C-alpha cells in the first residue's frame, strides 16, 4: 500500500530522465528528484533557486536556501546564477504548486479575492513565475479539488499557457516552454497540443474521468487512450521511505 503523496512523488520522479536538469523546491519536488537520482536518473542535475547546485543531499532540506542544499554540492552560488542558467535555457524542468490553477496551467499564489482587498494573501510569486517563464517544462504537483482547479484564477501569478496557443510567445516569454504535466492525488494531466488546455493523461488506480472532472472547476479534456497511472513499485516505495524521506516529513503528512 501507498498513500497519495507517495504516488505523486513516484509519478513525478519518473518524468525526470537521466541527464536532465531540474529546479526544485522543498517538499514533494525535492523528494521526487532525490528518488529519481536513486533509481533511474543518477545523473539528474538538481538546482535550488537560492544558489545550491547539485548537492549530495544528506537529508530533506527545510528551505531551498538551507545548508543541506549545498552539502557536498558542485557549487554554492547566487540566485541570479541559477535563475540565469534557467533564463539561458539550461533547465529542463521546474516543479511548482499554487493555490489555484486554470485550464491553461496558469497558477495563482498571490491572493484569493480582489488584489486590492484580498480575502486571503499568499506569499506571491517567489521564484515560481521565473521558473515557469524560463524552464522548458513546468511540472505542477497539487491536490485536486474544485477550490484549486478553477475556471479563472483570481490572480495570474505564474504563467501557464496564458490565454492559449501562441499567447506565451506573444507576451514575450521564451518560446517553447510551458506547463508539461500536472500531478494530483487523482490523476496525471497534460496539455492538448492544439488548444493548450488541460487533459487527463492517466487516472490513478481506482479513479474515473468523471470523478476527476467533478473535482475540477473547468472542462477537462482527455487523451485518446487514457491510461491507468502505474502505481509505485516496491523498489520505489522502499527507497522513498528508507532513503529519501526516512523521517516521513513529506510522505507522512
Amino acid at each position, binding site marked *: 500500500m501507498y498513500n497519495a503523496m507517495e504516488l505523486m512523488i513516484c509519478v513525478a520522479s519518473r518524468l525526470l530522465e537521466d541527464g536532465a536538469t531540474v529546479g526544485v*523546491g*522543498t*517538499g514533494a519536488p525535492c523528494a521526487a528528484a532525490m528518488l529519481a537520482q536513486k533509481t533511474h536518473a543518477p545523473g539528474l542535475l538538481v538546482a535550488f*533557486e*537560492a*544558489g*545550491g547546485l547539485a548537492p549530495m543531499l*544528506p537529508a530533506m532540506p*527545510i*528551505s*531551498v*536556501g*538551507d*545548508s543541506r*542544499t*549545498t552539502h557536498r554540492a558542485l557549487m*554554492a*552560488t*547566487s*540566485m*541570479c546564477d541559477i*535563475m540565469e542558467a534557467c*533564463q539561458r535555457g539550461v533547465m529542463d524542468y521546474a516543479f511548482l504548486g499554487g493555490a489555484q490553477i486554470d485550464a491553461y496551467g*496558469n497558477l495563482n499564489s*498571490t491572493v484569493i479575492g480582489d*488584489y486590492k*482587498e*484580498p*480575502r*486571503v*494573501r*499568499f*506569499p*506571491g*510569486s*517567489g*521564484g*515560481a*513565475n*521565473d521558473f515557469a*517563464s*524560463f524552464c522548458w517544462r513546468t511540472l505542477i504537483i497539487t491536490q485536486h479539488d474544485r477550490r484549486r482547479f478553477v475556471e479563472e484564477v483570481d*490572480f*495570474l*501569478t*505564474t*504563467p501557464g499557457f*496564458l490565454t492559449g496557443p501562441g*499567447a*506565451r510567445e*506573444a*507576451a*514575450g*516569454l*521564451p518560446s517553447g516552454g510551458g506547463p508539461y504535466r500536472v500531478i494530483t492525488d487523482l490523476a496525471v494531466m497534460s496539455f492538448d497540443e492544439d488548444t493548450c488546455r488541460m487533459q487527463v493523461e492517466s487516472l490513478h488506480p481506482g479513479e474515473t474521468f468523471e470523478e476527476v472532472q467533478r473535482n475540477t472547476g473547468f472542462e477537462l479534456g482527455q487523451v485518446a487512450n487514457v491510461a491507468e497511472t502505474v502505481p509505485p513499485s516496491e523498489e520505489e516505495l522502499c527507497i522513498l521511505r528508507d532513503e529519501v524521506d526516512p523521517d516521513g*516529513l513529506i510522505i507522512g503528512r
Partner: protein
Amino acid sequence: MTSSENTGRGPLFTDPDPDVARAFFREKKGALTDKLMSVPDAVARFVHDGDYLASGGFGGNRIATALLHEVVRQERTDLGFAGHTTTHDFQILAAGTRTGKLIFSRLDAAYILGLEARGLSAQARRLMESGEVEVCEWTNYALACRFRAAATGVPFVPVRSMLGTDTFRESAAKKIACPFTGKSLTVVPALYPDVALIHVHESDLFGNCRIRGITVADWDLSRASKRVIVSAERIVSTDEIRSDPNATAIPAFCVDAVCHVPYGSYPGNMAGEYFSDEVHLKAWLDAEQDVAAYRVFLDKYLYGVDCFESYLEICGGEERLAELRRLENN
C-alpha cells in the same frame, strides 16, 4: 499593446536614477576606518524612520536576526521593505513595534509571509490583509535584478519573466521592445535601498566580508545599498582577509557598520556553523495563531529582551546552540 499594458500599475517606492545614487556613493569614501560598533549603535546611526530597508540571506538562512530585532526594539516606523525571499525576517518586522505601530508601510513583494515548508505566518498574513501596507509585486529573480541594476549603476535591467501575468500588472516594471531583436522584454527599475542588513561569516573591522555557502543576492545587495550594516559571526584581522582575496564577497567600501554577533542568524541556519532552530520557529508560528498568546510571546522573546545575547539565552542558551552546531556539522 496599449501603454497601460506596457507599464505595471504598482507603486515605485525608490528612485532608480543612477545619477542620484552616484552623488551619494561619491561621498561614501573608500578609506579603511574602524567600523566596529554595537548592534544598538549601528541601528541607531544607520536606520532611520522612513528609510527603505532590505535584508540579506534567504529568509531563514543567514539572516541578520540581531539587527532585525533591534530595528523592532528601536521602534523604527514608516519603512519601505524589500520582500525578497523573506520568511522569518519578514515575520520579525511584521510584529510591529511594542506600541503597535507598523514598522514598514511600503513593500516590494516577491516572496512574503510564508516560511517555506514550515507554513504561513498568521501575523504576517493579518498585516498584509489589513490593507495598511502599500504593495508592489515582483518575482524573486526580478527583485534580485533590481538590486543588480543598482549595483551595476544603471537605471534598469531586462528580464524575460513576469510577462503576460498579473504579477507584471501589479508591479512597477515596464515592457519594452528589444532594440536588437524586436522581442518584448520586461525591464525592472534599479532598487537602491537606503540601508541593508546583512549577516556574514567573517568580517574585519573595516567591513571586508566573507560568506560561506550560497550568496543569494547579497553580492548585489551590498553594492546597491546606500548604507550597509553587517553583522558577523567572527571578526577577523585584515591580514587574514588579505591572505585569501578570493574569499572576500563584500569589500569594505560598501560597508558602514560592522557588528560582532555570534549566532547572529539564529533561529535561522548559518551554513557550516549551525542549523535552524525548528522548535523555536514553530513556537513563533504557533504563537501567532492567537493574538493574546502572540503578545506574550513577543514580550518574552522580542520586546522585553535587552539584547540579542539575552534572546539566545532564553531560547536555550549554549546548550541549544551547541545542539544546532552538531546538527549542522553532522
